[in-house]
C-alpha cells in the first residue's frame, strides 16, 4: 500500500515552472504622431429626434454654433424632429386619412413647437417666446436660418417622410437629400461626433 497519490505530471504546472517570467509581447505599434496643426477636426452630427420647443432650441443653438466654429455640421432629422422642418404655412400633410389626421393632431413647423412640460395649451411656449424676446434669445426659426446660412446640412429621414406621407415640397427650402439609418451609421463610424436630441 502506498500513500503516493500525485504521480501524474501536471502539464500546466510544468509550463509555469519552465516559463522565465512573463511571456514577451510584441509592443503594439503606435500610430505615427500627427503633424502639428494637421489634426483633423471631427465632424458634428446631431440626430434630431424630438419636436418639443426646448429640444428643438437646443438642436438649433448647437448646430449654428458648431457651424460658426468651422466644424462641418449635419443634422439628421427624424420622427418628431422631422415635423420641425415642415413649412410653417403647412397645416395638414399626408396622403391618406390617417396621416392627415396625425398632422391635424400636432401642428408642424418650426414656429409651432410645444413644450414637453408646462405647455398649458400654448401658454408655456407663449411665455417662453416673450422671455426669449426680452432677453435677446434668437428664436428656433432665426437660429435655423442662421444655421442654414452657415452651411449646416439638414438631412431628412426618408422612412419617416414616407410614414407621415411628407413630400419634398412640404419641407422647408434647402433641405438635404433624404437618407436613412445607414447614412447615420456611416457618418458615425467615419468621423462624426454624435449627439441625440
Amino acid at each position, binding site marked *: 500500500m502506498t500513500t503516493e497519490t500525485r504521480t501524474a505530471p501536471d502539464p500546466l504546472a510544468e509550463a509555469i515552472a519552465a516559463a522565465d517570467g512573463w511571456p514577451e509581447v510584441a509592443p503594439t505599434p503606435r500610430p505615427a504622431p500627427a503633424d502639428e496643426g494637421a489634426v483633423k477636426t471631427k465632424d458634428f452630427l446631431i440626430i434630431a429626434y424630438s419636436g418639443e420647443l426646448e429640444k428643438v432650441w437646443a438642436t438649433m443653438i448647437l448646430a449654428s454654433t458648431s457651424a460658426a466654429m468651422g466644424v462641418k455640421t449635419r443634422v439628421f432629422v427624424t420622427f418628431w424632429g422631422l415635423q420641425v422642418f415642415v413649412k410653417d404655412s403647412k397645416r395638414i400633410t399626408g396622403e391618406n386619412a390617417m396621416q392627415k389626421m396625425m398632422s391635424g393632431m400636432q401642428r408642424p413647423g418650426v414656429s409651432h413647437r410645444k413644450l414637453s412640460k408646462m405647455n398649458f395649451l400654448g401658454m408655456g411656449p407663449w411665455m417662453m417666446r416673450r422671455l426669449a424676446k426680452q432677453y435677446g434669445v434668437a428664436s428656433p426659426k432665426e437660429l435655423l436660418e*442662421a444655421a442654414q446660412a452657415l452651411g449646416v446640412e439638414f438631412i431628412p429621414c426618408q422612412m419617416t417622410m414616407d410614414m407621415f406621407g411628407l413630400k419634398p415640397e412640404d419641407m422647408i427650402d434647402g433641405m438635404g437629400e433624404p437618407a436613412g439609418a445607414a447614412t447615420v451609421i456611416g457618418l458615425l463610424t467615419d468621423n462624426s461626433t454624435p449627439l441625440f436630441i
Partner: protein
Amino acid sequence: MPVVEITRSIDARGLSCPMPIVKTAQGIKDIPSGGALELLATDAGSIKDVAAWCHATGNELVEQTSDGAVYRFVIRRK
C-alpha cells in the same frame, strides 16, 4: 496700446448666446485675411465664447475691453 484699424464692426448688443458668435462667423467671411473685426456684445458668456471661437477657428483675438456693460472684442482674421 497700438490702435487696430477696424475693417468691419458687428453690433451684437442685446443678443444672447449663440448669436454674437453666429454673427461673428458670418461677418468675418466678408473681410480679407489680416483684416480686423470689431464685435460689440452685452452677453457676459461672450467673454469665454469669443475666446473659444477664436481658438477653434484660428483667428486671433487682439483686443478685449469692457466698459462694464458692453464688451468689445477685436479679432484679426487669419
